[in-house]
């Protein structure tokens, strides 16, 4: 009955602690620090700050932990079902006879961790509405002062200064110098944006840096910068890296410029172009106003050329001269011209009145009209003795009968005798 244990020597009695100690030694010394590939499951973010999860493959799993102190280096957020590479070692929890994988570094498998972080933050901010068009502010057409948040020594400030200066000499540039990469860069950039908002006195902000690797541009993919841009009441133009680089800042900004130089072009208009435009507007104003003057002038000459005027040629000539004068001065100073014109028109009207038949009658002349038909009599041949006529005076009239005809009247006689 005891046979099967007969070859076991009796002096090998272990305590539980001893055994677990031995297991711990064995596991922790023989298995080196390794990269372990697996899928995350049962993920728990503990209130203590530690992260607990399992790493599994098709057939097996192992509990894993990432302590709070190491979690600080995580740029992306682990999720259940995510394939990861974990750098770590096996650790035995002696007290409970339990082993787990102690994770020092965690990376997404297949895709870069920065890429993963980028996608995650993009998704998060997008769902919060930070990229919505409705939040985009208008970039002023003619900013007087431009705030810039970038490195004081980088290519970006040099390019910005050059292009701004070329396009719009005279625009004021205020720089808030920051570190654009490395530890603390994102915070400095965010602070720069906030300080400009506190300070005011700039019409638009350009935030960015020159080209670099994904790591170099990373600050512009951080939440702190994105939030600061979103908070900004001053419109923000993002100008990060090269044409092909898209950062989170680009999505939040009111306007994305592909490069710092392009940001400068978007921020200010071209001065030469503007001067040309003003010149052009001036010409259009002059042309259209001159056309209008010509039109009014033509209207006047039509008036001047009318029948009433032709009856008094010298009067007409005088007025034509005056009108010409008037029209010339119209072109020199328009405002004056108008009141003068009005006065002249008034006086013309008065003169016209003096030509009216009533005026002539007032001076003692009378009109002789045939009773039969009402034709006005201008020559003595037109009537014969015994014919009835009407006489019109300045006031009233009379009916008369022709007594005799005279070939010439007394005024004609006088003028003939004097020849």
């Amino acid at each position, binding site marked *: 009955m005891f046979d099967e244990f007969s070859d076991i020597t009796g002096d090998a009695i272990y305590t539980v602690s001893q055994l677990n100690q031995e297991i711990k030694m064995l596991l922790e010394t023989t298995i080196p620090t390794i990269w372990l590939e697996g899928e995350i499951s049962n993920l728990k973010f503990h209130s203590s700050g530690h992260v607990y999860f399992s790493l599994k493959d098709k057939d097996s799993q192992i509990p894993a932990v990432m302590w709070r102190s190491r979690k600080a280096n995580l740029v992306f957020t682990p999720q259940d079902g995510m394939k990861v590479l974990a750098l770590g070692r096996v650790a035995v929890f002696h007290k409970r006879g339990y082993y787990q994988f102690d994770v020092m570094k965690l990376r997404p498998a297949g895709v870069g961790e920065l890429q993963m972080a980028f996608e995650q933050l993009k998704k998060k901010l997008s769902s919060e509405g930070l990229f919505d068009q409705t939040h985009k502010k208008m970039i002023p057409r003619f900013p007087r002062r431009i*705030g810039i948040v970038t490195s004081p020594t980088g290519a970006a400030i040099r390019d910005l200064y050059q292009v701004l200066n070329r396009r719009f000499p*005279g625009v004021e540039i205020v720089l808030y110098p920051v570190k654009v990469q490395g530890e603390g860069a994102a915070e400095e950039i965010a602070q720069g944006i906030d300080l400009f908002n506190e300070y005011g006195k700039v019409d638009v902000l350009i935030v960015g840096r020159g080209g670099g690797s994904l790591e170099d541009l990373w600050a512009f993919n951080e939440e702190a910068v994105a939030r600061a841009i979103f908070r900004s009441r001053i419109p923000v133009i993002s100008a990060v890296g090269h044409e092909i680089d898209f950062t989170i800042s680009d999505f939040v900004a009111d306007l994305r410029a592909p490069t710092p130089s392009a940001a400068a072009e978007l921020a200010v208009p071209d001065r030469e172009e503007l*001067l040309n435009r003003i010149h052009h507007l001036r010409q259009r*104003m002059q042309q*259209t106003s001159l056309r209008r003057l010509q039109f009014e002038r033509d209207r006047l000459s039509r008036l001047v050329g009318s029948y009433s005027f032709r009856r008094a040629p010298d009067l007409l000539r005088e007025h034509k001269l005056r009108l010409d004068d008037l029209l010339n001065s119209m072109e020199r100073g328009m*405002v004056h011209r108008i009141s003068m014109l009005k006065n002249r028109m008034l006086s013309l009207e008065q003169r016209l009145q003096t030509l009216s038949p009533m005026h002539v009658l007032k001076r003692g002349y009378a009109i002789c009209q045939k009773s039969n038909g009402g034709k006005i009599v201008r020559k003595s041949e037109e009537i014969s003795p015994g014919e009835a006529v009407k006489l019109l005076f300045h006031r009233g009239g009379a009916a008369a009968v022709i007594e005799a005809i005279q070939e010439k009247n007394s005024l004609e006689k006088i003028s003939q005798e004097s020849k």
Partner: protein
Amino acid sequence: MAEKTFEEAMEKLEKIVSELETGDLSLDETVRKFEEGMKLADFCSEKLNQVEQKLKKLVKSENGLEEQVF
């Protein structure tokens, strides 16, 4: 108009030119707008010709935020 901005002046100028061109104005109005437009054009050109490049930096001091020569 106190301290009119370039932007406002430019917009007004553009508006006046288009008003003049539609030709619905009385002659008096035309003359008035023409004069105003010319003044605006002068103002805008003058603004553009004020060439004084300034590059400063924003610094945080005990007195709060201020600009210094860069």
